[in-house]
């Protein structure tokens, strides 16, 4: 539990990089005028297993892909908003700078049951096991695509993925040669700027991103002035080095610093003030392409996050570091069978003097294997399992199987069964949230008792995928039943009287339907439509109410021949009462429309391009409530000007 132990992995990384930089050769370099060279030259393996996305019709889970075109058409400024385009996913904000992304229930401030990865690096963090979205050193412009696995995928992604996985893939280092810049200004204090630049030589490529993002958060409501604006400055860099045809070395770095408005002048102790948040990461990935399409990957990352939260004489600071090493080996055992196996070792260190008795240092280790067997062209069987030890005394094995049947080239059926475990977060297991308030004495809000069992989710689903390209139509539908046992939630010995502690007290069965349809007509019309319906049958009424019975989202986009584009987003959800909120925070039926109008122009004959885009969120309907009644969402309008050189 000391700081120096955080560095235990660094020598390994140094050795690895030294090894990688030795002994590379390029046999045909310097023989440029040889006509046969095109046919005999060595080429690097570019589209390897890590880079290839699994087609939706072959994946063992339902999957939603959000690509750059959708990101642009949506007009959203922040990453969490994008998940409104995923059926069954609830997006809201605890405050204007604390987004909530939840899937399938237990909607509460920290969505603890989703795995979130950025380029393979886990970004859900202790102590709560959720993601602090605003602290990610990542801009919308940096994202290549987002793959959202709907349904448990603990067998491949570990214990935080019992409800699903958000896999954010950033743009490749080689994607940008030149300079892009954009500036956004709008009401509600919206003021964003982004600069992206990069260069590529084929062997060494890089892409860098500088960003500034700020807004005032929610408007003042009758319940609270809502001091929840934020200012974020961030930088990220992705470099890729290809010493030869088989190896690829990637180094990434990201830094985010900013202030976040928290508290309220209506509160006695937690007055309106800013926290100062700092987060950064370094990541190094070495990938070797082996014979026969096999590959071996080793990745190390270090993540740091610090929240400096000073409340006059009190403080509530959190510092977290994570070291993570993962090895992954993909191999084709035959023409019809492919497997991936690997192991992960993670060391988390948490210092939060008001939330734990002491600094905590724990190791999470896991071992996983996944097999994809193409029994014949019609049938694909996916099986997998993960063994995970959370370093706090819990160990679990999460198995999964899915069978996909291609009825014909257009229709696919999928049946999936899985059991997934989520090990308790460090706060659930060891939390001790307390303040020694001068003149008042010791106030203990949370005092965990430990000894929790992992949550257990047993899931079954039937999926159907239809792709009718000639009609410009596709459909992805899924019927599922997820049974949660030993669900961890907070409780008190005396009702409404702290200290709060955690227990395995939720049992619930989720039954639901999710449908996505995509339509394309004419040369440029596209419509994505999502619908989800869910029922929960639980031993707890508050749990049953914690998801909207249905949600709808739709995104229509059209680009005209004169370089103008229009897109309309529609988001609707039934009433919901988040589990950790009192009845007056019930979020009523909400409906929202977003509109984006854009016009591209050529600035000069050398290919310099620009675009002006206007986004109006919620232009027609009245304000609605997000998560808490004080969070009134009113109309937002902003203009973005961008240029590519």
């Amino acid at each position, binding site marked *: 539990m000391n700081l120096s132990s955080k560095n235990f992995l660094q020598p390994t990384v140094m050795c690895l990089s030294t090894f990688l930089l030795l002994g590379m050769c390029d046999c*045909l370099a310097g023989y440029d005028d040889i006509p*046969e060279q095109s046919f005999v030259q060595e*080429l*690097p393996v570019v589209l390897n297993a890590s880079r290839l996305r699994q*087609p939706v019709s072959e994946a063992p889970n339902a999957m939603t892909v959000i690509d750059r075109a959708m990101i642009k058409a949506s007009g959203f400024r922040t990453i969490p908003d994008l998940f409104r385009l995923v059926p069954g996913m609830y997006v809201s904000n605890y405050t204007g700078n604390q987004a909530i992304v939840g899937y399938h229930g237990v909607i509460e401030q920290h969505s603890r049951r989703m795995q979130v990865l950025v380029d393979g690096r886990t970004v859900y963090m202790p102590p709560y096991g959720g993601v602090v979205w605003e602290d990610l050193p990542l801009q919308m412009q940096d994202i290549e695509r987002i793959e959202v696995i709907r349904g448990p995928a603990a067998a491949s992604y570990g214990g935080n993925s019992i409800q699903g996985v958000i896999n954010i893939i950033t743009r*490749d280092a080689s994607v940008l040669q030149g300079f892009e810049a954009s500036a956004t200004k709008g009401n509600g204090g919206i003021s964003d700027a982004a600069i992206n630049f990069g260069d590529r030589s*084929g062997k060494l490529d890089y892409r860098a991103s500088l960003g500034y993002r700020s807004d005032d958060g929610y408007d003042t409501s009758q319940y609270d002035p809502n001091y929840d604006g934020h200012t974020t400055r961030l930088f990220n860099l992705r470099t890729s080095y290809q010493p030869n045809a088989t190896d690829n070395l990637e180094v990434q770095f990201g830094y985010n610093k900013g202030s976040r408005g928290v508290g309220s002048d209506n509160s006695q102790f937690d007055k309106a003030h800013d926290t100062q948040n700092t987060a950064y990461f370094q990541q190094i990935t070495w990938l070797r392409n082996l014979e026969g399409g096999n590959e071996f990957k080793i990745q190390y990352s270090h993540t740091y996050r610090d929240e400096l939260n000073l409340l006059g004489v009190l403080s509530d600071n959190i510092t977290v570091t994570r070291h993570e090493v993962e090895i992954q080996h993909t191999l084709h055992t035959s023409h019809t069978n492919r497997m991936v196996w690997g192991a992960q070792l993670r060391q988390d260190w948490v210092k939060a003097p008001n939330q734990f008795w002491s600094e905590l240092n724990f190791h999470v280790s896991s071992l996983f294997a996944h097999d994809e067997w193409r029994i014949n062209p019609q049938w694909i069987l996916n099986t997998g399992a993960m063994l995970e030890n959370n370093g706090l005394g819990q160990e679990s094995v999460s198995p999964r199987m899915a069978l996909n049947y291609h009825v014909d080239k257009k229709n696919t059926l999928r049946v999936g069964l899985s059991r997934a475990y989520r090990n308790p977060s460090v706060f659930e297991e060891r939390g001790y949230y307390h303040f020694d308030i001068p003149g008042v004495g010791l106030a203990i809000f949370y005092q965990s008792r430990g000894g929790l069992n992992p949550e257990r989710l047993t899931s079954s689903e039937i999926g159907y995928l239809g792709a009718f390209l000639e009609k410009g139509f596709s459909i992805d539908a899924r019927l599922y039943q997820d049974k949660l046992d030993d669900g961890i939630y907070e409780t008190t010995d005396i009702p409404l009287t702290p200290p709060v502690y955690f227990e395995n007290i939720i049992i619930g069965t989720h039954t639901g339907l999710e449908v996505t349809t995509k339509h394309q007509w004419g040369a440029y019309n596209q419509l994505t439509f999502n619908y989800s319906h869910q029922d929960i049958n639980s031993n707890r009424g508050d749990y049953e109410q914690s998801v909207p019975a249905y949600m709808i989202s739709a995104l229509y986009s059209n680009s005209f021949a004169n370089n103008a584009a229009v897109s309309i987003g529609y988001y609707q959800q039934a009433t919901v009462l988040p589990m950790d909120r009192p009845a007056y925070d019930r979020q009523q039926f909400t409906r929202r429309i977003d509109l984006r109008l854009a016009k591209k122009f050529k600035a000069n004959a050398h290919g310099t391009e620009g675009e002006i885009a206007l986004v109006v969120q919620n232009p027609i309907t009245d304000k609605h409530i997000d998560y808490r009644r004080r969070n009134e969402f009113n109309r937002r309008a902003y203009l973005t000007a961008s240029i590519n050189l």
Partner: protein
Amino acid sequence: MRFNRLRSVVLVLGCIFIFNPIPCWADNLRLLVVLSYDLPAYQSFANTLTKNLPESVQATVLHNPEKVAEQPQTDLIVSVGMRASLSAVSQTKVPVFVVMIPKVSYEQLLVQSPKQSRAPLISTVYLDQPWERQLNFIQAILPEHRRIGLLYSAQTLADLTLLRKQAAKLDISLIDKRVLSEDKLFSTLYDVLDSSDILLSLPDTTIYNSTSIRNILLSCYRSGIPFIGLSQTYVNAGAIGAVFSSQQQLSEQVVEAIRLFARNGNLPKPEYSHDFTISLNPEVARSLDIKLSSPGIVRSIMSSVNRGIP
């Protein structure tokens, strides 16, 4: 009578001319295999070829084409690659069978080497594929992809006029754009990808090389556009498929040519390789949500098209 006698003389002379103007080497042909460079691609071709040769052929492999003129008595040279071919043609008077260069380059070789210095007999099996085969291949694997994107430059080693004609016959649109300079490569690529269903690579190392291929393949992949390569290496890199002639297939054709030469001192006419390999990348295809047939089925579709079967 006089006429009959004359006819007999002509016949005899004719027989002598046909059967014995130059020696035949049914038993002991001295073959010199000249490599352009002492590099693995050339060495492996030489190895494949020598393994396939009949025992009656005495083969010597020369790794340095500059020394071709210094070689002792040689009946036939197999020159592997352009450098070796140029040396063999310009520095010797020995018949040369050229391998491992594409058709356009072979034609350049003939133009570049003056007639007086050229070997008396020269022929080749082209390294590249005929357009008809290439287009049949694309149609067999991706019948709905009718707009073929092409990038070319002044260095492209392919006859595009012929390709345009062939594509027009098959009602295929070509979206071809010239890459004016290296820094315009990717803007030109994006233009082509915007209006194409597929990108077909051409022999041109100024466009397709180990430095650029990564960004080309990634750009194609991001646009959901399959890429057709030139060789197995392209398929390994991420092309959806390629039709090409393997070293073994080329060697077999070279051996046939050597046998013919050994029998009657002639070389076959320059032609494309009779046999070819179909290589597909099912994982890339799956990822692009493209259903590919097996190479065997693709081959039979290609041959049925050739036979005129609808």
